[in-house]
């Protein structure tokens, strides 16, 4: 079969289609299903946590297993659910948005996906080991994760290495695609914001994933080869671990949220039937957030005893992030202002994102105030803060994106009634789940504890009820997606009345190969 023919046949049949595929749409689909599976797995861990915390006392699990659950929940959700979901969306949409026939490096694309299931199989297998799974939290602070770690830590380290390799390959591919594969006429400042935010995210990934790989490598050496990177006895410093981890970890936070900004910036204009307000400032704001993300890491460590000057610097830098983030929120609201809005499921999720993410942003600003952070740090206030940013933030944006582009992917409209049901149950569930956690934290409940004092009992059971509601409602999403793949109302090419962008110029479902010849430049509009 000649290379030329390769471009025109449809997908191969059976399992080998998925194993050997180099097609960006297939790989995008694989990422999205994988991410959904991990979302359910990580969600199951969260249900165990919420069940144990439903009442004071130990009911279901012992404290060691509880710690394994919090650790695995964090790792699976961050590296297995949120990040692969965004990579899946990038794979599906970026080539179609910029008029490219495929990703720049299709074979590497296949690799970067297929090593992921191995990483998570390895990580999950630790649950069955004698030593138990990693139990030192997803932030794995040394020396709890080195000298005092269960022996499964080595599997954890290799799993993190593989996840890192996958992300790095994915990012290289995305950067190469965006910089080299744009159709003629698709200038940088005409790119949809989802493409812009992903371009910046990919650079962040390339900058910080290797640092994470370095940190876990140092751990590996400390554990097995007698070095003392993080061991005070040999001249090392446990606080160094935290500096290195958060040098990765803070940009990582933005890696999980910048593509979400891109998704929301696509959806709100569509359903407001009005161009995005302040496209240029959106791009600059994204870039400044990315830049600032490198100089604020130590705000995670205000209580480790840094000198006053250091605390002040990181406080001011962190507060600064509120400015570009504020610009984004104002822009979205201005886009809605004097639009002509309808409220299909993607728009509902997008509006909920703007409100609830902003609330997460507010608590973030509160956490930046160092003296107040001394009270908030490592309590449920922080848990509430980052879950507001990540669940009704990042996860809602992924769901919004799924509803928004499902008709393009499957060729059928999803069931709008079920979609709305899913939204409202998620929206109510997530707030019952996380809002009371603010109160718990302020009243003094530390995070990562399997049991708590009696004054925390009420809000904990309320939070657990919200958790079960939120968890159960995600099964609706599964039903919606399967129904939509099987059939339904035929989707038009444009799908949504107010949609702009190249992906809406191709038929629904999007053909296996799109833009093998570049699109007509007259279809390329400013966003």
């Amino acid at each position, binding site marked *: 079969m000649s290379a030329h023919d390769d471009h025109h046949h449809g997908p191969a049949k059976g399992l080998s289609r998925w194993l050997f595929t180099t097609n960006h749409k297939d790989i995008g689909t694989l990422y999205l299903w994988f991410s959904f599976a991990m979302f359910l797995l990580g969600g199951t861990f969260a249900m165990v946590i919420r069940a144990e915390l439903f009442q004071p006392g130990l009911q279901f699990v012992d404290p060691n297993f509880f710690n394994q659950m919090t650790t695995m929940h964090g790792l699976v959700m961050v590296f297995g659910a949120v990040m692969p979901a965004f990579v899946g969306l990038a794979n599906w949409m970026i080539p179609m948005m910029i008029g490219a026939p495929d990703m720049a490096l299709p074979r590497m694309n296949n690799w970067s996906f297929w090593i992921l299931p191995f990483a998570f199989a390895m990580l999950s297998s630790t649950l069955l080991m004698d030593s138990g799974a990693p139990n030192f939290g997803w932030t794995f602070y040394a020396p709890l994760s080195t000298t005092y770690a269960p022996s499964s830590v080595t599997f954890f380290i290799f799993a993190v290495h593989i996840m890192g390799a996958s992300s790095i390959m994915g990012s290289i591919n995305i950067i190469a695609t965006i910089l080299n594969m744009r159709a003629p006429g698709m200038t940088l400042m005409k790119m949809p914001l989802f493409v812009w935010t992903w371009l910046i995210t990919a650079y962040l990934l390339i900058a910080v994933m290797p640092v994470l790989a370095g940190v876990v490598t140092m751990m590996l050496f400390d554990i097995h080869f007698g070095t003392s990177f993080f061991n005070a*006895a040999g001249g090392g410093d446990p606080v160094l671990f935290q500096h290195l981890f958060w040098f990765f970890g803070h940009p990582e936070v933005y890696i999980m949220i910048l593509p979400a900004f891109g998704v929301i910036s696509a959806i709100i204009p569509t359903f407001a039937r009005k161009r995005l307000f302040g496209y240029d400032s959106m791009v600059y704001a994204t870039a400044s957030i990315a830049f600032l993300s490198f100089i604020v890491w130590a705000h995670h460590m205000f209580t480790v005893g840094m000198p006053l000057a250091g605390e002040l610097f990181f406080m001011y830098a962190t507060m600064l992030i509120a400015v570009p983030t504020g610009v984004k929120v104002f822009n979205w609201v201005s886009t809605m202002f004097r639009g002509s809005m309808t409220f299909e499921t993607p728009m509902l999720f997008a509006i909920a994102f703007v409100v609830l993410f902003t609330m997460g942003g507010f608590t973030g600003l509160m956490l930046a105030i160092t003296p107040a952070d001394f009270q908030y740090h490592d309590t449920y206030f922080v848990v509430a803060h980052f879950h507001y940013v990540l669940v009704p933030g990042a996860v809602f944006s992924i769901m919004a994106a799924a509803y928004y582009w499902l008709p393009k992917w499957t060729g059928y409209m999803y069931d709008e009634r079920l979609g709305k049901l899913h939204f409202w149950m998620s929206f109510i569930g997530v707030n019952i789940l996380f809002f009371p956690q603010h109160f718990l934290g302020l009243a003094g409940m530390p995070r990562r504890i399997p049991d708590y004092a009696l004054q925390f009992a009420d809000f904990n059971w309320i939070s657990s009820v919200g958790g079960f509601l939120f968890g159960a409602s995600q099964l609706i999403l599964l039903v919606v997606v399967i129904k939509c793949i099987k059939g339904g109302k035929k989707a038009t090419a444009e799908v949504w009345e107010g949609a702009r962008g190249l992906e809406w110029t191709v038929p629904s479902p999007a053909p296996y190969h799109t833009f093998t010849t570049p699109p007509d430049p007259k279809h390329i509009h400013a966003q």
Partner: protein
Amino acid sequence: MNDHNRQENISTGNKRLAAKLALAVVGMFAFGFALVPLYDVICDITGLNGKTAGRYESSEAELVVNQTRSIQVQFMAQNAAGMQWEFRPNEPLVTVSPGEIRVISYKARNPTDKVMVGQAIPSIAPNAAAQHLNKLECFCFQEQVLQPGEEVDMAIRFFVDEAISERINKLTLSYSLYDITASSKAGKEIASNR
């Protein structure tokens, strides 16, 4: 045909860009490791983590004692996990003037029936004082080998320099004592001689 050329160009462009980005990845991996010594340097300069610097190397003859100021130096001790020695300062608190050289000592006793090797790790609070406490001699510079039941006094010769902030009138020097019998050279020799 033109189309074909364009695709070729893109393909080489992709590979070249990917190679550059891969290089950046390798660079960032190396940078992660470079942060380790960099962190030590920053700590040395700023006293960031309260670690004291190594041996004071300049001439002590040039030291000028400032009698108008006095600073309390407090000594603290604790054992790290698994360390069984008795370990405590003989003088928990001394008052010095900047530039004045003082000698104090810690007592250590190995109550076990084994030869053990200990390493003391210093730390100073407030950490802004760390770079101003200069040690001419300190037991923390070497590993300490104690025979079963052996008791020793271990000395520190130090002075506080003039540059220490006016606001600091008391500083605490703390030693954490670690059992490094298993990992140290001396400890391995003991094990092999047995």
